[in-house]
């Protein structure tokens, strides 16, 4: 009886470390690229009543720097601080060796309402590469900044940016057996972390729906592995797989209509495809070995999965309609948790050899394998939706941390949580875009 009365208070106390734990996920650049493009993002001007709560120019500069592709000029080295094109004297920037210049201003238009104007210039040609006016709000200012980063990245590299995206990850705080596990969603730069779910039992394998509105994940809240799908905005969730045995490794089909998953209800772990509308289940593998971690090719035609049918875990590929599976990894004694690059040409995986588990990238056409990480306990790779970076989980100073690496292996970032472990990070699809108005002024 005493215990019953204490329970809500216990829950309160257990909640406390959480607020600290999800306070911040900070990103540090651990290794940059020598050939990064010199650019300048001038601090944005502010007009109208009410200063905006976010420093757009600083967010954009930090985004671009984190990608490793750009070297933004330090603010104190700037010779001028123009806020629009007609204030720009290109000689001020040429002399500093700056190649790309972004200027802009934020105008307060009402309570919590702003209009952000920005322009991007090629300094040596003295030409405007982009110019937009973006109406936005208090709550959307950071998103607006990330969208500006995306535009700059795309104009200067020719590839789409992935700054206006989010990551989902699992944290574990406290000591066993009273650990608290949380599924969280934050902006790709670590800001705005939000707890989607708290549990006293482990959570793993979060997977974004292709439209970015839902997460599928594995929860042990009922003392065994079951799969839920949760709407991120409303928190509404549904128990999607609770068959006897394992229910694990959910993976969305590219069109979002089906979920590939691992079930052991028929004796041992096999790959199944669940049609989400009709709730029909199709079994794809039939093998006394472990078959798990299915992942869809971006064209939706094939699945890659982990199997130890050959003795040790290796990656295999099969049609989504079932049939024969073909082994596709041959190097090293352990290859698992494959994940396709967005263009479908490469596969990232956990590669184990000589007791070291690293993230490796394989060219599917040639089978050539490249190591992207160099620690010993690296796992769960996930591509940014533009294919430029891979986020993965690692271990540093006996703590689970996250790291990101560019697919060329040259840029390394570290994502550090203040307290506790963080793991199982997955990068969202491209974010919702805010309306853009092309700026009429050249």
């Amino acid at each position, binding site marked *: 009886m005493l215990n019953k009365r204490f329970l809500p208070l216990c829950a309160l106390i257990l909640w406390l470390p959480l607020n600290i734990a999800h306070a911040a996920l900070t990103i540090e650049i651990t290794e940059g690229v020598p050939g990064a493009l010199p650019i300048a993002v001038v601090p944005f001007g502010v007009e109208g009543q009410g200063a905006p709560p976010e420093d757009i120019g600083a967010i954009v500069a930090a985004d671009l720097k984190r990608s490793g592709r750009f070297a933004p000029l330090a603010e104190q080295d700037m010779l001028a601080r123009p806020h629009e094109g007609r204030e720009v004297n290109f000689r001020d920037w040429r002399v500093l060796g700056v190649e790309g210049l972004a200027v802009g201003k934020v105008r307060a238009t009402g309570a919590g309402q702003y209009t952000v104007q920005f322009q991007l210039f090629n300094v040596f040609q003295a030409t405007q590469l982009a110019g937009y006016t973006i109406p936005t709000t208090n709550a959307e200012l950071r998103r607006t900044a990330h969208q500006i980063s995306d535009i700059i990245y795309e104009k200067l590299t020719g590839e789409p940016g992935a700054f206006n995206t989010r990551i989902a990850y699992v944290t574990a705080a406290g000591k066993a*057996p009273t650990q608290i596990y949380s599924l969280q969603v934050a902006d790709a730069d670590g800001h705005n972390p939000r707890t989607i779910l708290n549990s006293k039992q482990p959570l793993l394998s979060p997977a974004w729906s292709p439209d970015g509105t839902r997460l599928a994940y594995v929860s042990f809240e009922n003392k065994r592995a079951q799969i839920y799908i949760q709407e991120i905005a409303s928190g509404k969730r549904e128990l999607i797989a609770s068959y006897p*045995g394992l229910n694990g490794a959910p993976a969305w089909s590219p069109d979002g209509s089906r979920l590939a998953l691992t079930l052991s209800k028929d004796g041992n772990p096999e790959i199944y495809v669940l049609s989400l509308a009709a709730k029909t289940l199709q079994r794809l593998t039939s093998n006394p070995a472990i078959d798990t971690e299915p992942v869809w090719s971006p064209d939706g035609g094939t699945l890659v999965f982990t199997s130890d049918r050959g003795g040790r875990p290796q990656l295999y590929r099969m049609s989504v309609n079932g049939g024969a599976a073909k082994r596709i990894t041959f190097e090293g004694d352990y290859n698992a948790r494959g994940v396709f690059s967005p263009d479908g040409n490469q596969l990232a995986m956990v590669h184990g050899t000589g007791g070291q588990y690293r993230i490796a990238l394989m060219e599917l056409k040639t089978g050539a394998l490249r190591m992207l990480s160099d620690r010993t306990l690296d*796992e769960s790779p996930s591509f940014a939706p533009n294919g430029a970076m891979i986020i993965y989980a690692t271990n540093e100073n*006996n703590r689970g941390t996250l790291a990101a690496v560019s697919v060329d292996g040259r840029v390394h970032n570290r994502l550090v949580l203040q307290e506790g472990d963080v793991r199982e990070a997955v990068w969202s699809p491209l974010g919702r875009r805010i309306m853009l108005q092309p700026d009429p002024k050249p």
Partner: protein
Amino acid sequence: MKSSITLSAKLLLLMLPAALLIGCQSTGTKSGESAAIEDKSSGAATSAAGDAGTFRGDALDDPAGVLSKRIVYFALDSSEVTQEDRATVSAHARHLAGNPAAAVTLEGHADERGSREYNLALGERRGNAVRQLLLAEGAATKQIQVVSYGEEKPLATGHDEGSWQQNRRVEIVYTSRK
């Protein structure tokens, strides 16, 4: 008078979180599913009290008896029960066969290396390996549940072979004693 009441009220408020934490911990231990933790405490208390040969009571509670051993260990990426651990599993099989109302959950675990979902599958395979042995030696299907926690619930939290060895395991947890 008034101030002393306030003071003791303050003291009470100060002490409250500590008392609550203790309350939380005790509920946690009672409802905790780890047999290993329970065994350790009861083992320490009773082994000091008397010698093993004269233990009276439920064989499951005999700290020196073979049934007190409730963890089976495995080699890397293996689900084969070693010769050494077979005696343990046999003893539990006999106990289950002799006590049809007794039931166990076999909690399969893996070390942290490699991918989490593969380890989840590996933990289940280890649980099933112990289940097969129990069934072969007289336990009934309905007496055994298998659940895998993969690498999610390590016993040892280090990142070295010493810890990994302790974590590649199946815990035999009695959910019903007889």
